[in-house]
Every structure is written in C-alpha cells, then in structure tokens.
C-alpha cells in the first residue's frame, strides 16, 4: 500500500498502527494473494482493522471503556468502507457473517473460533 493511501485510511487511527495494527496488517497481507494486486492492501487493512477493532471493544471479554469502544467501532466502520470500496460482494458478505458469528457467540457467552481464522476463511469466499 502506498504511503498516501495508508495515511488516508488510517486517519484518526494512527496510534493503533504502532500499537499492533501494522503487524496484524502484514499478517493478513500474506493471506490475500488470491485477490487483485491493487485490492490486496485494502483488503488486508480491512481484516486487520476488524481484528484490532473487536479486540479494542472487548467483544467476548470484558467491555472496553466508552472511548476505547468508540475507537473499536470506528475500526469496524472503516473496515466496512474499505470492503465496500474493494471487495467482491461475496467477500463483503463473508466478512459480515464472520462478525455476526463472533458477536452472537459473545452474546451467548460461548467460545468462538479465532478471529484471524474466520477472517482468512472469509477471504476465500466466492473464489
């Protein structure tokens, strides 16, 4: 991802980049090889934002304090917009279903599959 694009997509979330988002992004970047080259960075960033976002919110664990929850919400919203810009309809649906599964499990107090596993699987939707 070019520096300019990265800067734009990380607006208001810059502090998270140094706080683990960059590593998470790189990990996902290795899993999106099957997608169009120009789409890969945004897809990887979307997945990384979802993973970091739900961790910030405390989904499935202790509730985050309000300001942290709102940062988590913004991560999810930004990811949603990145997917709308870049992903196929099948991938968008698969990502949403992954979050539905995670949050339904959290609401029921049930264990869920690891987030990364679910999101990596979502990348293969429609492939």
């Amino acid at each position, binding site marked *: 991802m070019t520096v300019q694009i990265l800067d734009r997509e990380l607006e208001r979330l810059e502090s998270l980049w140094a706080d683990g988002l960059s590593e998470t992004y790189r990990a996902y970047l290795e899993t999106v090889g099957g997608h169009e080259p120009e789409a890969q960075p945004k897809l990887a960033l979307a997945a990384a934002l979802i993973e970091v976002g739900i961790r910030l919110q405390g*989904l499935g664990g202790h*509730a985050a304090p309000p300001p942290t929850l709102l940062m988590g919400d913004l991560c999810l919203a930004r990811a949603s917009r990145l997917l709308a810009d870049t992903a196929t309809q099948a991938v*968008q649906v698969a990502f949403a279903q992954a979050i539905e599964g995670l949050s339904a499990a959290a609401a*029921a107090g049930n264990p869920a599959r690891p987030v990364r596993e679910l999101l990596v699987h979502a990348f293969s939707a429609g492939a």
Partner: protein
Amino acid sequence: MISGRLRFESSRATEFVDLTRRIRDEVKKSGLRTGRVHLQSLHTTLGLAINENEPLLLRDFQHLLERLAPGDVGYEHDDFARRYEIAVDEPVNGHAHCRQLLLTGFATLLVEDAKLVLGRWQSVFAVELDGPRHRELAMQLDGDFVEEATVEGRDGSREARLVELELARQLMVDPDPVALPMRRLMEAGGKRLRPKLVQLTSQIGPRHDPVRATSLAAAVELLHNATLIHDDYVDESTHRRGRPTVAAAEGAERAIAVGDYYFAKATRLIAEIGNSGVTTTMAEALEAICASQIDDVALRGAFPGDHDSYLRVVRGKTAALFAAACASGALLSGAPPEVVGALKRYGDRLGVAFQMADDMVDFSPSSGKPVGLDIRQRVLSLPLIYAAEDRSVGPEVRRLLAGSLGDREVGRVAELVTSSNALRRVGDEARGLVDEALRELESIELDGLRPTLVSLARSAVDRTA
C-alpha cells in the same frame, strides 16, 4: 403485535382524562382489524376506568373516591420520618395510592371490524389521582392486522408495514441472545424516519423495486438501532423509549455484542442488495457516525461546546444516516446523479434539523421524557449552547454546568434555558434548515412524492416527543 406508549398531561389533582378518541386513532393507525388493545398504567396513582363521560357523574365518582379515601385523614405512607430512601420531591399522597387500589391499573379493549368495541355510553378514562402530572400508559395491540396489500397510499403506510414485517422476519432468524434485546428496543417504538426516507426515495427513479427497498430500509433501521445500543452504553443511559437500555438491562458486554451483531448484519443485508453505490454510501455514513461519536465524547470536556462543534458532530452523528438513507434509496431506484445529490443534501439538512428538534424535546414537559436528561448526561445540545451564550442567563448556566449536576442544578439549568430565548433560536434555526432542505427538492423531478417529503420534513421538527 404493536407496542407503544400513550402519553398525556393531567391538569388537576383528581381528573378523569378521556382517552377514547386517542385509542381509536391508535387502532386506526395500526391497521388492527380484529383483536385487542391492552392498556397498563405505569403509575401507582393513576387508574383506568371504563364508564360514562357525563360531567356530573364524573364529579360523583370524584366525591365517592374522596369519601372512601379522604385526603385529610392521615396516612402512614405520608409519615416520612418512618420511611427510608425518600425522594426529595416525594409527595404527600397516601390517599391517592389508596384510591388507586379501588380502581384498576389494566384494561383490555376488544377490536372488531377495525373498530373499538364500546357500548354507547362507554368511554375509556385514565383516572388521575395525584395530579397534575405527566403520565404514561403502556399499550399493546395484538390480533389480525389489515393485509399489507390493502393499505393504500403513497404516504408510506403500506411501506411502513412492509418494513415492520421485514424487521420482524430478520429478528426471527437471529439467535435469541442478540435478537431478544434488539426486539425489545424495536418494539418500544422509534419513529422509523430513516427507513421511511429510504422507501420514499426508492420510488423516485425508473427502477422501483419494493422488495429490495424494503430490505434496505430494514437494514438502515437495524444499523441505526445498533448505533443506539453502543451510544447508550457510552452515555451511561439507563432508559431509551421508556425501557431499560440493553447495557442497563443486560450489561455492557452484551450491549457491545448485540450492537456488533446488528452492525454486521445490516452491512451484510446492504451488501446482499448488490448495488455498489448503495453499499459505499451506507459504509461512508457509518464511518462518519463513528468518527462523530468520538468527537462528541471528546467535546464533553468543553461542555456545552459551541455552535460550530455542534454542527460538525450532528452532521456526522445524526445527519449522515438521514442523508445516506435518502441517497441510497434514490441510487437503488436508478435516479440520476443530480437527483441523488439533491436528496442527499435534503437528508443532511433534515437530519440536522431533526437533531435540533430532538434537543428541544429535552426541555419539553409534555414530551413524556424526563426533562433535562441531556443536561445530566452532558450531551451536546444546541439550546444549552445558546443559553450559555445568552447575556442574561449565560453566566449562571456556565457556572452550573461547570460544577456537578444534581437534581437541583439540572432543574435550574432547564429553567434558565426555558426562560431565555435559546429554544426560540433553535426552533427558528431548525425550521430554516427544513426550508433549506425543501429548496433542494425544487429543481428535481420527484414523481409526485414532493408533498410527502415536504410533510415529513415539517413534521420532523414540529414535534414534542
């Protein structure tokens, strides 16, 4: 099943408030054909009665209640020295509680042929026993409702019913831990303005598809409610639409999970519609909402803030979804870009005006909501900003807001805001924005929907609840 509240204001200590016409209107509005209207008093000094509305007879009833439970004989309930945890404003009203015991707090009325079944002389009364007060009855209508296809008109009544059915259908397939809290929130009310905007604007272009429009409208409403669930946790709100918030009732962890679930579900439903313009428009709106929430919380450090900050936050927090609802409906219908743009601006102005009107409701005793909730929660509010700027009341408002806000301070701030010209200024500004919104519609072809969009915009700001 339709749930709601009947709110009213009593004007005397003892009063028989005839609600028959209002209940008839509710039945008509709901489309209930055969079934029941259940009413429940939400107060311990408010009863229900079905009897004749004849003024002298009502005086007889009042005298009877006074004889059976006189106001001046002394009640143990009124001996505050022997009671614990008494509210500061606890009234002396043992007699009112005793009188309520002689009445009922519940009523079930039958509906046949879409009409309330009442005898010739029967009227339905709420019986005020400790007024004057703001009162609220819980109301549920159940039974067979008019088939959707027979509800005619382009005013949105048929479409509104379709959205309710779609919402019910969506919630039915969701797991209980998320569906039940969301169902309680949705059944408690809500104006459904955003889905209405989607459905109206989806009729403007050449490709009207009611099924996809309904699905989009329901998704927008789910998204809106998902944001409310997180908001309520952030704002530490205990009640919304007269019921405990999800966070208050089920804990913050559950509230976060329910909000996330419906955020994801709504984005999936939108993606499944398969219109990339709609998907992007809604995703951008959601991003704007979340960014503004962060600004909103940050601004509470400088409470009550200023006009520019207010507009910036409200544009994102409220108006973004109004604008996206309008634009996405039009995009779905294949409307040309200039029409989509005009409707988006219409939604934006309307959304800001709606929020201003909502701020004013916080100072309206007839709204049925506790006055001063925004003050207590230090929520960004334009009447407060204007009152704080006011030459005469401003210094005291600012001093009070800078300190801790107990009942007395909140009451005083509300009094100062009401006594200043802040509410008039906000009302004027909201109506000005509605005019601006309507001007956006002047240059575009709306296929006969103009009167509905005009009326919807006007009613969004001319309200008390």
